[in-house]
C-alpha cells in the first residue's frame, strides 16, 4: 500500500522485493526441527503407521506405480538448508506433494480436520469423504448460480436461492481439489484412479449442469495456478492492493452479482418479466430447503408463497401478486376480494 501511495508501483519492483526478502527467521525455524517433515500433517508420529496403511491401500485398491510412492514418502535430507529464493517455487511444490494434497481434500469439511489427526488413516478419510460428498450432493440438485435476469426486486428470492445452494459450490470445489494432485503429478495411473472416484461422485450428483462443470473446470485451473510455478505471480498480486482489486473484477461472480453485475453498468434492464422465470426460481428455492422438515419451515408463509409461484397459482403482475385461476387466465382480483396487496399511496 505504501508503494501505491508514493508513486507508481511496477510488477518488477514487487518481484524484486520478494526475491530479496529476508528469510533468516524461516530458515532458523526450519533447521531447528529434528526432521524436516515434522511440520507436515500427514507424516510425523504416524509416519510408520501410515506407510503400512498406504501399502495395504496400494495393494488393495489402486494400481499406482512406484514413482508416485517415491514422491510422497521420499524423506528430505536431514538438516536441509532452505534453498535460495530462486528455488522456492520448486520447494513449495515438493512440500505440497507431501502435505497439501490430502489436506486440500479435507478443506470443505472443516469439522473433520480434527478427526483426521485421531485416525491417521488417510485412505479411510478419503473413503469417508466420498460418502459425505455423496450425501450432501444428494440433497442438492440445483446449480450454484443462476444467470436469470429478472426484474422483481429480486433480493429476497435470489438471496435465498444462493444462500441455500451453497453446498453445491463446495462439492464442486472438492471435486476439483481431488483432481489437483493427479494433475500436478502427471501420473496417469493416479489420475485414472481419481477419475473413477470422481465419476462415482458425479453419478450421485443427479443433475450437474453445464454451468457447474464449467465452474469446476475453472476451479481446477485456479487451483493449479496457485499450486504451480505461476504462484509467484499470484503472490505478487496479493501483495498489491490495486492489482488485487483489479483482479477481483475478473473473478467469477457469485450471488447477486450473477443476476445484475454492477460492473457492467450498460446492462439493459429486461422490461418484460417472465413468469416462467419466477416459477423456476421459486422451484429451485423450494428444492434447496425441501430436506428441512422442521415445523417452522413447513408452516412458513414465504415458502408457501414460493410453492404457489412454482405451481403457477400466483404470479407477479406489475406491482402486485395476483392469483391465477386453473385455466391459466387471470381473474379480476378486486372482484374476488383476493387481492394480495393493495398498492399504497
Amino acid at each position, binding site marked *: 500500500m505504501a508503494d*501505491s*501511495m508514493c508513486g507508481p508501483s511496477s510488477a518488477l519492483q514487487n518481484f524484486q522485493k520478494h526475491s530479496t526478502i529476508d528469510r533468516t527467521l*524461516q530458515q532458523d*525455524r*526450519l533447521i531447528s526441527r529434528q526432521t524436516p517433515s515434522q*511440520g507436515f500433517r500427514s507424516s510425523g508420529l504416524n509416519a510408520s503407521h501410515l506407510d503400512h496403511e498406504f501399502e495395504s491401500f496400494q495393494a488393495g485398491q489402486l494400481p499406482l506405480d512406484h514413482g508416485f510412492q517415491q514422491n510422497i514418502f521420499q524423506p528430505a535430507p536431514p538438516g536441509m538448508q532452505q534453498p535460495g529464493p530462486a528455488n*522456492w517455487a520448486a*520447494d*513449495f511444490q515438493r*512440500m505440497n506433494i507431501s*502435505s*497439501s494434497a490430502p489436506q486440500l481434500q479435507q*478443506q*470443505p469439511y*472443516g469439522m473433520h*480436520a480434527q478427526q483426521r489427526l485421531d485416525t491417521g488413516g488417510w485412505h479411510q478419510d478419503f473413503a469417508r469423504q466420498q460418502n459425505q460428498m455423496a450425501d450432501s450432493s444428494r440433497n442438492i440438485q440445483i446449480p450454484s448460480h443462476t444467470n436469470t435476469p429478472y426484474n*422483481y*426486486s*429480486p*433480493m429476497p428470492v435470489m*438471496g*435465498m436461492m*444462493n*444462500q*441455500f445452494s*451453497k453446498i453445491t459450490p463446495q462439492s464442486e*470445489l472438492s471435486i476439483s481439489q481431488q483432481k489437483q494432485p493427479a494433475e500436478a503429478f502427471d501420473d496417469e495411473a493416479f489420475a485414472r484412479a481419481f477419475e473413477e472416484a470422481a465419476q462415482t461422485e458425479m453419478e450421485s450428483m443427479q443433475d450437474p449442469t453445464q454451468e457447474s462443470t464449467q465452474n469446476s473446470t475453472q476451479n481446477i485451473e485456479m487451483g493449479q495456478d*496457485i499450486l504451480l510455478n505461476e*504462484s*509467484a505471480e*499470484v*503472490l505478487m498480486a*496479493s501483495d498489491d*492492493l*490495486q492489482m488485487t*482489486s483489479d483482479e*477481483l473484477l475478473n*473473478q467469477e*461472480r*457469485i*450471488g*447477486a*452479482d450473477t443476476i*445484475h453485475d*454492477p*460492473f457492467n453498468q450498460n446492462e439493459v434492464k429486461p422490461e418484460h418479466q417472465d413468469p416462467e422465470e419466477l416459477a423456476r426460481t421459486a422451484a429451485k428455492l423450494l428444492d434447496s430447503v425441501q430436506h428441512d422438515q422442521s415445523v*417452522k419451515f413447513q*408452516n*412458513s*408463509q*414465504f415458502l408457501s*408463497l414460493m410453492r404457489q409461484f412454482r405451481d403457477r397459482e400466483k404470479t*407477479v403482475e406489475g*406491482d*402486485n*401478486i395476483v392469483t391465477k385461476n386453473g385455466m391459466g387466465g387471470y381473474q379480476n382480483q378486486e372482484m374476488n376480494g383476493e387481492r394480495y*396487496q393493495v*398498492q*399504497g*399511496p
Partner: protein
Amino acid sequence: MEFRTAGYNGYAVKYSPYFDSRLAVVASANFGLVGNGRVYILGLDANGIHAERVYDTPDSVYDLAWAERNETQVIVGGGDGSIKLFDTKSPDNFPVQEWKEHNREVYSVNYNLVTKDSFVSSSWDGTVKVWDPVRPNSLLTLPTHSCTYSTAFAPRSPSIISAVSSDSHLRIFDLRTNPSSANHLVHLIPIHGYPPMPGSTYGPPRQTYAPSECLTHDWNKYRDTVIATAGVDQLIRTFDIRNPKAGPVAILRGHDYAVRKLSWSPHLSDVLLSGSYDMTARVWSDGSNANAPSRPANLGPEAWGDELGRMNVHTEFVTGVDWCLFGAEGWVATTAWDERVCVWDVRSVMNPANASRFN
C-alpha cells in the same frame, strides 16, 4: 413484547440513540418482492408497543438509520434506489428529503457516529455513497463493483468506512487517504480466506472456504479494530483490521442457513446478536473476554466463541436485530418476515451463568 407490522414483512429494526422507548422498523409488502414499503416509528410503554408514526413508501424499504444529530429524523433506503429522510416533527406523512442516485436497491444506510454530520449508503449497483443530509447530492462515491449488502462508518473514526459485498470481500475505505486510483480503499479482505500462500511455513495450515456472499457486518463497539461479518455460508467471522492478512480471529458456527443481520452488543465487548434465515436469532460470545478459558491458538479460529442463547419465536426469516442502548443490558429488538417485531431480553434465552454477565 410484540408488535405486528400487519401486511408488511419486516426488514430492519433500530433503536433510537436518543430514547430507550422508541424504535424504528422498515417493512415491505410481499416479502420485499414487489409492492410498497412502510416505515414504523414505534413507542414502548407499560401497555406494550404502539405505532407513533407510519410512513408509506412507493417501493420496498430495506434498511434504516436514526439520525445521530437529530432525534426525530430517520433515514431509509429502498428498493427503487432512493434514500428518504423522514422527520417525525413534520406534520404530514411525506419524506422531508429524498436522494436518488443509486441505480439499484439500497441495502444499507448507516450514520457517522463521530461527526454525526454524514451517512453512508450501499447498493446493489456496486457503489457506496457518502452523504451529508443537508446537501442535495452525494459527497463521494466509492465503487465496489459488487452488490454491496452492508456498509458502515467505524464507530471511533469519522473517516473510516467498511463495506461487505456479494463478492465475499470486506473492504475498508479511509477517506483521509489521497483520492488516488484506489478510491480510498485501504484494505480488501477476502472473508473466505486468502488462497494458500506458496512457500509459507508459518503456523498451522489455514483452513480455506469457498467464497460466498457476505450479507452483513458490524464494528465492535469497544475494540475499534474488530469487525464481525456473516453471510451465505452460515458462519460469523470476526476480523481484526490491525492484521488484515491474518484471516478471521474467530469463526462462530451454528446457524443452519444464511445469516442475515448481526449486531455487536453496546454493553459487552465480546457479545453479538445475529438473525438468520433459519428463523432464529442467536446470541454469541466471540471468546475474547477475559473470563473465557484460554484456548490453544493452534486449534484455529473455529475453536473460539460460543453460542450463548437462541431465540426461537419468529416463524419466518429473521431479518433485523438491534440492541437497546439504555437500561438493562440484555434488551434487544428483532424483526422478521413473520410481520412481527419482538422486543425481548437475551437473558431469557440463556443459562443463568451467562445471563449474569448482563447487568
